[in-house]
């Protein structure tokens, strides 16, 4: 993964995780499929969790169900139905989850509870805390799912960006410059940042440019992991923007 960080999106495309899954023809036995899926699940488990919670499931059950769904996703045959031509991981996952939940209702949930290996380290407290933070809205569960998806994506991107800076010993620079990702700074901001970081204004501008370039690269890369073709990337971003 670290390796992928150093590359720009266009070179990534041949090997994005979702294309790996699709290329394996949905064969869950293929090890690369497994890796790719659990890696994706690691990033996007929270939208799943909160979708399940939103169905009226209590916290403990929701956690189990999320684990179970991810396990099934990786082990079982959901992937056989995927149409590679119009595949976006997000839509696939939501469809699979629905399918899973409707099957689940027919089963005795209690029997299944607790008996599975935990594949993904979901921090339950974190999950519940986040869930409670969510604005209660009139949004449909699907839209909420998409919204959380977008937030999970951004979390992941910012995490990677932060890691980059931390690794090169420039965590302070990242913290100080972070706000420029949402808004263009004005001249006094540059001057203030310069003073704060003991850098010249010009150096700050260079740093801002680099941060933005890097962020953009990571964001596009992360989205690219979940779509099948280059052409879908901007469409996906657009969809995510609309659901926020």
């Amino acid at each position, binding site marked *: 993964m670290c390796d992928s960080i150093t590359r720009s999106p266009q070179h990534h495309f041949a090997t994005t995780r979702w294309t790996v899954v699709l290329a394996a023809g949905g064969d869950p036995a293929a090890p690369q499929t497994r890796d790719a899926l659990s890696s994706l699940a690691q990033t996007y488990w929270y939208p799943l969790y909160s979708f399940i919670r939103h169905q009226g499931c209590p916290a403990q059950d929701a956690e189990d169900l999320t684990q179970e769904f991810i396990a099934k996703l990786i082990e079982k045959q959901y992937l056989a139905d995927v149409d590679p031509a119009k595949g976006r991981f997000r839509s696939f996952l939501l469809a699979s989850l629905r399918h899973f939940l409707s099957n689940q209702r027919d089963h005795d949930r209690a029997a299944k509870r607790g008996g599975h290996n935990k594949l993904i380290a979901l921090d339950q407290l974190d999950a519940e805390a986040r869930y409670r*933070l969510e604005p209660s809205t009139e949004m449909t569960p699907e839209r909420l799912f998409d919204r959380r998806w977008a937030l999970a994506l*951004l979390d992941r991107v910012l995490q990677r960006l932060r890691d980059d800076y931390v690794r090169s010993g420039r965590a302070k620079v990242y913290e100080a410059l972070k706000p420029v990702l949402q808004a*263009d700074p004005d001249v006094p901001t540059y001057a203030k940042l310069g003073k704060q970081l003991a850098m010249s*204004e*010009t150096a700050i*501008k260079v740093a801002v440019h680099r941060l933005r370039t890097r962020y953009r690269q990571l964001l596009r890369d992360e989205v690219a992991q979940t779509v099948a073709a280059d052409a879908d990337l*901007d469409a996906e971003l657009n969809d995510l923007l609309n659901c926020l």
Partner: protein
Amino acid sequence: MTSQANCPSCSTPLPPDSPEGLCPSCLIRKGMAQTQRAGEPQSGWTPPDAQKLAEYFPELDNIDLIGRGGMGAVYRVRQTALDRVVALKILPPQLAADPGFAQRFAREAQAMARLNHPHIVTLYESGQRQELFFFIMEYIDGANLRHVIDSGGVSPREAMAIIPQICEALQFAHDNGIVHRDIKPENILLDHQGRVKIADFGLARITGGDVPQHATAMVMGTPYYMAPEQVNSPQAVDHRADIYSLGVVFYQLLTGELPIGKFDPPSRKVVIDLRLDEVVLRTLEKEPARRYQHASDVKTRVETIAASPALQDHPGMILGILLVAQRNGKVKVCPGGIFRMIFTLITVYIAATAITSMFVSLADARYDLLILFFFLCGVIFRAIRLRADQLLDMDAKPQQYPKQSLLTGWRALFRLARVRREDKSVVWPRLIQLIAYSLGVVIVYIAAVRIYFGILGVWTGPFLELLTTIGMLAGIPLGYILASRFWDLPAALPEPPHTAQPAPQVNSPIVDRPDSPAPRPQSNGESSAPSAHQTAGHGMESDLKHGG
């Protein structure tokens, strides 16, 4: 806690679960494709992708395309054996079709290899792999000047730090007999410490003459940065062409615009040191013989100016400037200036003497009021001066001022100008500080004048009277200087509410756009950031010149 914060950019409320407290919508938007692919090459040439290139260069890995254009493509690569990151520049193969190309390439590459200077991108290697001509050079992890200009402009102070570095590099190259021929913001790189590194020395010559007669993609640099003789008689071009291009860059850094056609001196556009006009205009002389003859001359001049206070900030010029000054940005050549200044001083002296003698029979306490009066005069002068600056600023950059403030005049000035270079959150602390500070100064001043009176014994003879008056009049510059410490044109103007922004301007770093010189309002050192002008995206992906 319950009050929801709004995104400073799009003004929508921030949801409580927004990632790292940043607005999710704006974050996503930043990742969207630019509306126009800036700098997309117009020639049919597509640079080889990383895998293809790896076949040509087995000794390199981690290949990453970082910029491309009609004149080639730049990759960031790692030299496996040396474990260092370098920039690899590939020239379009069709250039090689030109019969003299290989020879020219070899000759210029040799010359470029001699350029070992801290402000010049170092060439490590050049050569040919099958049909690809390439350079391997120092990789600069930073941005180019175009990016910096696009992301908020450059203050005159920064410009005056950047220009001498460019001059140094140019002088060094010229001493080595190399003319750059394509100085422009895209070729001026800045590393992460803000140091200048000039790229593509001599490249213009390799890639086929200086005449922009081919397809647009083949134009060497943009015509806007080219010296007139470069267009008219390319054979006669010498190092002074670089000095012209440097002048264009300088002009653009100061004003945000390109000096096209009949252009104004920079001080007409922005509030800057008036002495810079002379420097900029002289580098932009059409006739090479009338320009500075050496880049080092420009450097010396700029550094001298940077080291001494601006004429208009000189305390002795305050009154003169108040009356004549800034209207045309020509303080020192305005023939009436000095005369009027003297006239003003005499008037003020007579008035002050008259007022003083009015008060002379009154109680001591009145002196204090009198002193305060002079002090306030100084503050008021500052206000008048600010108003003049504001009018000029409005004149030069009407876009930056919301419509209504053009009408509200003084009120707008007081609203906008109350705090210098600081954001709004510190308005009150600053004002309180200002008041407290002023009171302190006035009290000390009054005490000083009282002691002075006491020592001399008030009003005993015309000479002492003069001295006394001068002592009291000193309150004027004191008030002025004090006020200007706190009070200046705003660094950033508040954005007018709900003003629809025009479509973001996409600056093409590579391909020339003959229809648009990409003028951009720009901040000047002390004041005015074009906050309303900043565009969300910039053509960062198409940075051909990066590293080369």
